[in-house]
């Protein structure tokens, strides 16, 4: 009987103590007058307790007079009484309401903008663009049209091929996909030559269309014609036909670079001395706490820790603290042996080279030369030999 009980609770009821000698008569009159009673318990010979609704109590008082019983309220239960009791606690109600308002007010702003999916485009660039579009921490989130923002972002930033924008709680999430520029290709129906992209010695040449100008073993320089799209008519000299050359021209190419490594190096270790600087974030302002002492370490690492007050994952509040940890470092001089220095120098050189060598090139040989200068540095000169496709299509112009 949960439902009637809940209903009684919502409407409110009273517990009554009735005293008298004809309590049966009292109950009978109540039922005849359609006053609902429940939980009637005999206490003693002439007392009993019963429950009735607030409205019923009004009638019971009249009935009690008639049946010469004495009734008194010994308990008040239910929502109306509960509300009445809390009506007097104004400060409590005020606090509850203002807390709710404050939270919902804070929840209606964007406090954090996050960008996912960018590799080459800097996050700050996208943030600046979003700022122009009106999305920045502290802006009211109801005025933001997520669909429009995503579309304008794609339109205005040429580097993006796709973007999505959504607001979760107080966090604006931007997912982007970068555009990979398609390689510039000469259309198949346009006549073209193939020229060398860089210097090298022809390793193999396979011509599918066009006339080959160089052969295996030839040394070519950058820009030199490898395969011509102009085919002369053998019977009638002077007349020629233009074709779209297709060929795979592989050449051996060389790349060189140098790397250095000192024999004397400094190794840093933390001494264990740490100093902290705390900064308070309030809305969009950063407040340095006055306790900060100057940092007097000669060498130090800085570790920045940002902690933001948040509820769940997406409801970020505009309060937080930034703790900067300064770790003092000690420099220990260390001498490498010659082999270690050589390895370090070679790796340095290789690292530089790998940035230049195109991805499809195959490294077939590498020659390393070490020298040592008077500063105690080992210099590694490295020459890497690759086989790669050096063909570059070029439209035949003016002919």
């Amino acid at each position, binding site marked *: 009987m949960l439902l009637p009980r809940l209903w009684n609770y919502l409407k409110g009821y009273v517990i009554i103590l009735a005293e008298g000698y004809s309590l*049966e008569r009292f*109950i009978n009159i*109540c039922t005849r007058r359609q006053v*609902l*009673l*429940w*939980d*009637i*318990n*005999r206490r003693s010979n002439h007392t009993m307790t019963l429950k009735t609704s607030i409205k019923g109590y009004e009638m019971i008082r009249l009935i009690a007079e008639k049946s010469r019983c004495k009734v008194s309220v010994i308990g008040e239960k239910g929502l109306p009484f509960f509300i009445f009791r809390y009506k007097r606690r104004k400060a409590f109600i005020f606090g509850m309401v203002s807390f709710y308002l404050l939270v919902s007010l804070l929840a209606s702003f964007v406090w954090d903008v996050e960008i996912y999916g960018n590799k080459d485009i800097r996050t700050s660039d996208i943030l600046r663009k979003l700022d122009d579009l009106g999305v920045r921490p502290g802006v009211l989130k109801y005025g933001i049209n997520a669909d429009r923002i995503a579309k304008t972002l794609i339109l205005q930033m040429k580097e993006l091929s796709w973007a999505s924008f959504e607001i979760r709680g107080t966090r604006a999430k931007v997912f982007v996909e970068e555009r990979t520029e398609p390689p510039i290709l000469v259309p198949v129906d346009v006549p073209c030559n193939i020229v060398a992209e860089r210097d090298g010695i022809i390793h193999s040449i396979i011509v599918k269309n066009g006339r080959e100008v160089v052969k295996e073993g030839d040394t070519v320089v950058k820009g030199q014609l490898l395969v011509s799209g102009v085919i002369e008519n053998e019977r009638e000299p002077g007349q020629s036909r233009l074709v779209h050359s297709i060929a795979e021209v592989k050449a051996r190419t060389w790349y060189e670079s140098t790397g250095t490594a000192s024999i004397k190096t400094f190794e840093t270790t933390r001494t264990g001395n740490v100093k902290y600087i705390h900064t308070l974030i309030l809305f969009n302002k950063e407040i340095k706490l006055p306790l900060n002492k100057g940092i007097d370490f000669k060498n130090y690492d800085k570790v920045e820790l940002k902690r933001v007050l948040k509820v769940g994952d997406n409801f970020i509040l505009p309060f937080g603290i930034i703790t900067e940890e300064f770790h003092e470092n000690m420099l220990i001089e260390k001498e490498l042996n010659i082999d270690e220095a050589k390895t370090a120098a070679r790796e340095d050189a290789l690292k530089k080279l790998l940035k230049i060598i195109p991805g499809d090139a195959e490294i077939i040989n590498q020659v390393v030369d070490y020298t040592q200068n008077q500063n105690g540095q080992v210099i590694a000169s490295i020459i890497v030999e690759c086989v790669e496709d050096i063909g570059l299509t070029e439209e035949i112009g003016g002919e």
Partner: protein
Amino acid sequence: MQDSNAKKTEKQGQKGNRVGGGFLEKLINILELPQEVMLGTPKMVLTGNNRLLVENCRGIVEFEKQKIRLSTLDGFVKIQGEYLSIKEISRENVIIIGEINSLEFVK
């Protein structure tokens, strides 16, 4: 509307009873109509020994912890037991809870 109807049947039932197995009662028996609806005969539903629902109760005559007497059309109903109390009471129905030991009709 329903209420006045009930009153009517009650009166009629009383009449029929007084005559002693009168015409109305016979008719109801033939038609197999529920007596408690047509005549106002008490209907009791006893659940285990701890809950008794009495329909068509006309009033409480005696109410104590060990004994409750109800007035019905068929005379008094005496309920004896321990810790008896009235769970709910309305115009026609009474629910009695407690440890019920006996239930008898007393003229």
